[in-house]
């Protein structure tokens, strides 16, 4: 190739043209030291421990383990490890790392939370080793969206340092929250759950979006004050996890305390977990005209062979509203069980008039033709 400027020369030129436009931010390469009372446990890692009253009111030694979280079988509340990470980026990838990790557990009626803070990149391996110490075999991790974000990120960090992340089972409370509250909350983000379910109201909370920049600023300036907000935010995240878990448990064991607008989703989840208490919750909801409760309950009865109970629900729902679900169920019942073909046909005709979705119309027409045939021949 013909002569070309050396790379350093080109770099110098674009540096000059850039520096004309902006003054580079001041840099600080010294090892950041935190001024507040955290214990420096490794050369680049600090730790603090906070102790709170345990949110779990039920005797933790009880034998009745909540089937809400089947992972807890053969374990107790004290095996839970509530955790959360704060990271340097939100899109993942090998260049995103965790700089703050918190773990909380229940011990002697207390909620103990350890927070580990990474002052600078070279300490990451120590930071990860400290985390690994906590991840013993008997632990069950509890997170909020950890299965999709925090856990894979930790696995990546461990891999990059040539370490193996111990395999520990995990309960992701985001999934449970969605099951219970998706229908009535605008979203199931942790802050919404706190406000609407746990009655926890954060004051001057640092938005998650701003966290990475606060950390990078700290690395550049060595001024730890703005981090206080991040630490507080992070501590609250872990506390909320424990409180949310306790809240779900409490409601599970005391269904009478479940707010009326959550009875359907709790009942549904209980039935899904094979707990008969769900039936009572659904009945209560259905009494208050909750159609979803009627659907779930009737299907439950039908599967159990309690057809009369199911039919009663469908009839009540049908009297209330000529909707597809109850209509079809009744039509099937009249056609196949009681052989009241004409009654079935009338129901299907009513449904057909109201329906506008092509696929459903097709199915209804099919059913209608069959019924008409039976009508004629009978």
């Amino acid at each position, binding site marked *: 190739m*013909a*002569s070309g400027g050396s*790379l350093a020369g080109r770099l110098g030129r674009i540096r000059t043209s*850039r520096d004309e436009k902006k003054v580079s931010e001041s840099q600080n390469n010294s090892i950041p030291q935190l001024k507040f009372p955290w214990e420096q446990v490794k050369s680049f890692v600090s730790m603090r421990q906070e102790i709170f009253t345990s949110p779990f009111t039920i005797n933790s030694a009880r034998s009745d383990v909540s089937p809400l979280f089947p992972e807890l079988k053969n374990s107790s509340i004290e095996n839970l490890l509530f955790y959360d990470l704060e990271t340097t980026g939100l899109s993942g990838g090998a*260049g995103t790392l965790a700089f703050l990790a918190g773990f909380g557990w229940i011990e002697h009626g207390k909620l103990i939370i350890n927070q580990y803070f990474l002052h600078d*990149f070279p300490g990451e391996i120590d930071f990860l080793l400290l985390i690994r110490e906590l991840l013993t075999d008997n632990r069950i991790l509890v997170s909020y969206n950890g299965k999709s974000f925090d856990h894979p990120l930790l696995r990546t960090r461990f891999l990059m340092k040539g370490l193996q992340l111990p395999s520990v089972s995990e309960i992701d409370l985001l999934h449970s929250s969605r099951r219970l509250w998706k229908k009535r909350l605008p979203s199931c983000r942790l802050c919404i759950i706190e406000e609407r379910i746990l009655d926890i109201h954060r004051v001057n909370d640092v938005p998650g979006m701003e966290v990475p920049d606060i950390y990078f600023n700290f690395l550049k300036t060595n001024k730890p004050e703005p981090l206080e907000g991040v630490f507080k935010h992070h501590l609250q995240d872990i506390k909320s996890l424990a409180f949310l878990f306790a809240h779900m448990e409490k409601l599970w064991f005391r269904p009478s305390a479940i707010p009326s607008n959550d009875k359907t989703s709790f009942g549904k989840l209980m039935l899904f977990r094979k707990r008969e208490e769900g039936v009572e919750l659904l009945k209560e909801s259905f009494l208050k005209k909750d159609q979803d409760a009627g659907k779930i309950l009737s299907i439950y009865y039908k599967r159990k062979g309690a057809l009369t109970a199911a039919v009663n629900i469908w009839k009540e729902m049908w009297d209330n509203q000529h909707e597809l679900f109850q209509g079809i169920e009744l039509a099937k019942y009249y056609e196949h069980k009681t052989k009241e073909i004409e009654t079935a046909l009338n129901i299907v005709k009513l449904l057909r008039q109201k329906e506008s979705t092509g696929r459903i119309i097709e199915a209804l027409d099919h059913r209608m033709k069959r019924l008409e045939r039976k009508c004629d021949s009978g």
Partner: protein
Amino acid sequence: MNNLKDKLDNLASNGAFTDNVTRWEKISSRNGKYKDIPEEVFPVIRDTLTKRGITRLYSHQAESFSSVAAGENIVVVTPTASGKSLCYNLPVLQKLIENPEERALYLFPTKALSQDQQSELNEIILSGEIPIKVSTYDGDTPSSVRVSARESGRIVISNPDMLHSAILPNHPKWIKFLSNLKYVVIDEVHIYRGIFGSHMTNVIRRLKRIANFYGSDPVFICCSATISNPLELARQIVESDLKLIDKSGAPTGEKHIVLYNPPLVDPVQGIRRGVVLESSKIATKFLISKIKTIIFARSRVRTELIASYINKNLKNHYNENKKIRVEAYRGGYLPRERRAIEKGLRTGEIQGVVSTTALELGIDIGGLDLAVLAGFPGSISSVWQQAGRAGRSNTLSAAIIIASASPVDQYLVKNPDYFFERSPESAWINPDNIFILLDHLKCAVFELPFQETDEFAGPVSDFMSYLEEEGVVRLSGGSWYWADRSYPAEQIGLRSASPDNIVIINTSKGKNEVIGEMDLPSAKELLFQNAVYIHRGEQFLSRELNIENKCCYVEEADLNYYTDSIVKKDIKLLQNDAEELSKTCRTIIGDILVRSQVTKYKKLKFSTHENIGYGDIYLPEEEMHTRSAVLVLEKNTVSGKAFALIDESLKEEVIGRAGTVLKNVAPVFLMCDSHDIAVAERLKDQYTEEPSLYFYDSCPGGSGLAEGFLNKFPYILKAASDLISSCNCEGGCPSCIGPVSAKGQEMVKGEVSKFLKTWLNSTMDNTGDSV
């Protein structure tokens, strides 16, 4: 096939046609050179090959097999349809069966090619019992399949863009794959030239770095079309030694190559019949006889024009039931539109296709008999690739190359030896383009911190301190770490200088439908407000080009003209990197600043191309740093003295015309498009204070073309001089120095010719090089 023979005979005896043929080359058929399938090849592979009718190998396939088996990096250079994919599939499959942990990565420049390769491999694997899982990993791969590709794909087929933006930044997820990565196949390596190639080297640097991190050191298998420097290019891309395998053992059928120069309409002004109409006419002749034909056009607009002309011609000749279907095919179509056309060609439902280079790469469209090239495709290797589209192994095929009025075309059609006898064109890249390098250094440090002493295109510490000043990396404890919240690969595209694509939206009759995409610089020149944009033969009128929101709203239109924009440019030399004074001229290589603005557009009537009006364009100015070669016609050098002799009143014209001719023929030697390199002529340059010619790279930071230009300058100068002497026009035409209309300029052509000749002679004396 006799159909084609009849047609060709017919044409050969047609004086009106042959009068315009500058060369009718008959390449006779050639027998294949075969080797037995090596003994160690597993029976399971052998059986599969037998089922596909392969009982022995072509010599180059056998050579590839033994080289790869011996752990050598190779670059295979053989013509189209020579069984190239077996050169990598055979050794890779063999080795992967032998060593059940090993994995291979196949990189293709386009998604379409990956899909093609996946289906070919699947055929091989499914027809036998070969226990190798092949997974495609590209933008269209659903996330459920992605996990299985990472975990259990033994061969992963992907493209450089995915490697760059998805695989490398998430390498810990690929640990299984990367720690066992043994083979990397890079097909169509000649495509990785210019900006794309400069990015590619850096992506491969990153791949090797991560592979080493996981303890693997893959063998590279590259394939290239015929260029003069395949080995050099492959070496620049993989930065390792490779073995060149370039003797094809594949048989070829008889092939006719016809060079056709459309007749002069106006000999004085040197105006010829247009390539669009001529190629439509010639292609129609063959299509009527149901000869499967592909027509290659040089631009998207021409693709659409030719397709519509042919369809019009056919409509006049044929009734409905003899319907012959001809489709246009080009970039900017949506993938499903493309797949439908490819399929139609394979099944025979479509008899003719008019395409840009989009179809040049090995996409399977079944056998074709004739290729019509509407204009030279810019490089000799492209000519052979496009011509190779017609005819598979043993059948007669033909390629008719129709020269346009462009200087490159005119040079090549009048100097057919250049075309048939040697291939001086070579591919240029500039992996150390500072902008590209810095972009990839960001990605690399994101992927894995750098130690202070690490190297990546040289010691990293200078670059890292630069990035530290930018605030995106941090030095701590002797290592550089990525220290920014962003995901750098996301903002870096490999194919163009700017990542901003404009989405084209059809808003006719309340529609809101995306019909295509275009990069920003092209969009400024093609989609400005009131531009006529042609898509799949449909005309659209641009209503609004919204640069901020990266979209352009167009409406269907029915107009009798198309549009062409006029760009104004201003240049400043920022830094003189290297300077050389010879007795012929002074040359400088350096960095320049180019300011450009699209200011006006012309309206040109369809068919006649006559100018029927102007309009203004209001778009913001673009600024670009790039590399340039500068030729200074200094007083006491030969070129300077020759220039000084020219009459004052003609000087500006002469330097302008000379620059244009040089720039116009340069792509023949540099394997670039004519718009990849630009020229600016200065009668008295503010920096050199002498008459000067700037030849600069159109891509920010440069893609190797400025350096390539100086390297090839003696050839370029000779081609420019030859072009003017061989042009029969009187005082200048679009095919040589451009048309001369103003009074008192009749002398210009002679002056330019004399000037370039004097310069050329001294250059040859100087270098002792008999160009």
